């Protein structure tokens, strides 16, 4: 089984970090993973997208994903491109503070990323809140894996953010009461 996840946002929102954390966490859990980040130019305000494919066997999908099981949206500006690729039975997790229109997906999750991040005293870590919530909603990876992966992904000169980031991931995870759409239905809950 291959799970394709697309992320979109604009520069500075931490989309690439969130993608890294999800992908590494899955890798650490022994899955096969493929990810590709794309940037819409150097300018501020340009889009920043990422795709992740997670599977239980070597990934055969090409790195440019055209149909996805899940979409994570930090900013609505480039969301329509992503939404067009979402399978009808897919799940969408979006930043509830910026997305005004309702999101069309079989399972939709709106997360107050900014508020939760601020509460967690990590105001810049909104994308990690979203990642945490998404993981909780899908049981794609465990929270502990997310936290470990995040620590791993931080460059040395950003280590001081590790604790705040962990709180943000947890805040997201905790914001979801129960799974909406299990990533690995055959494996049972993690």
């Amino acid at each position, binding site marked *: 089984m291959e799970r394709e996840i697309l992320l979109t946002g604009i520069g500075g929102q931490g989309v690439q970090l969130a993608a890294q954390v999800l992908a590494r966490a899955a*890798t650490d859990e022994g899955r096969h993973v493929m990810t590709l980040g794309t940037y819409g130019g150097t300018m501020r305000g340009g889009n920043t997208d990422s795709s992740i494919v997670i599977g239980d066997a070597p990934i055969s999908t090409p790195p*440019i994903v*055209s149909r996805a099981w899940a979409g994570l949206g930090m900013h609505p500006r480039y969301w329509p491109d992503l939404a067009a690729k979402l399978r009808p039975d897919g799940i969408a997790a979006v930043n509830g503070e910026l997305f005004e229109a309702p999101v069309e997906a079989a399972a939709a999750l709106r997360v107050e990323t900014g508020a939760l991040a601020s509460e967690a005293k990590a105001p810049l870590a909104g994308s990690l809140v979203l990642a945490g919530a998404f993981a909780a909603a899908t049981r794609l990876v465990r929270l502990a894996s997310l936290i470990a992966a995040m620590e791993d992904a931080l460059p040395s000169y950003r280590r001081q953010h590790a604790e705040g980031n962990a709180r943000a991931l947890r805040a997201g995870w905790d914001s979801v009461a129960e799974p909406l759409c299990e990533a690995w239905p055959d494996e049972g809950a993690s």
Partner: protein
Amino acid sequence: MTRRLMEGSEAMAEAAIAAGCRFFAGYPMTPFTELLENFAAKLPTAGGTCINAESELEAVGMAWGACATGARAATGSTGQGLSLMQESLSEITRAELPLVVFNMARGQSDYYQATRGGGHGDYRHLVLAPIDVNEAIHHVQLAFHLADHWRNPVLIYGDYLLGHTAEAVDVVREGFDPLPEKDWAVDGSRGGGGDPRNLNPIGMVPGIKGIDPDSFWKRLQAKHDAMEAAEKRFDQEHLEDAELLVVAFGSMARFARHVVRELRAEGVRVGYFRPITLWPFPSEALAQAAAGVRKVAVLEQNAGQMIDDVRLSVLGAAPVAPIGGISSDSAGFGVGPLLDIETIRGRVENALDGSGARA
């Protein structure tokens, strides 16, 4: 198994180092830059040297000098930078030096350059075109082995996707057949004894004035023929009863394979063939794979280059049609709209019409 999430560029640099590469020189150019950066970051701790050369011409010269001493060495660029290196690459081949060259290309428009040699004269590199990061790890190590085995440059044809896609992989050092000693390598030791080494691309022999082109070329030609006979590699799938055969290489093959698998799952009689070595091109295998089909569709991201080799393999036995084309993004990095499963599926389905492959 300790898989780590690594971009292709990082994995290739690690694989090279695992294979014993101790020298790299390059000049930044998208999407090759990250490969250079990874060599620069990793080689010194492995006891090697990475030079951020001042230009591609200088990079290839440095790599030439390094591999001439017997060290495992590599260089690379995108196809554009390789254009500048062609004079050297042509001569390095004739000097029979084992160099590994990376083309992190902007798409697949450098197929001719890679397979025919863009420089003057008759020469060929072995060309490996990995389909994904995992295979790239293998190919890089194989490349160093083959370069030493044949004393011939080996080119790895990658692209933006290969370099920038991260996959969870494990870089394990591979074993290969033993290689002869590099007694030809210049280390200075043969000076003063009346029988020095002279590593040159024109068949000069120390102590003898002028050159004897005939014996020189005969030797090279024989090696060329032996390489061609020995090193053809390919991959194929779903050939049974195929009515349409889709041929693709490198990153495009990953798209092609996916689409063929999808279609087969739907019962469509379509097959897949991938040359793994672009030179030597696996002509006989392709001819065989194409034996029963009604049509061969070539998916390449260029104006039609590999299609020559496909036609030269199939030799009229079935019609050969291009289903790819030039496709670029607005930055010119070769990540264009063709790199899309739906688009490719559409083209394959178009090619299917009339090929009788619909179940």
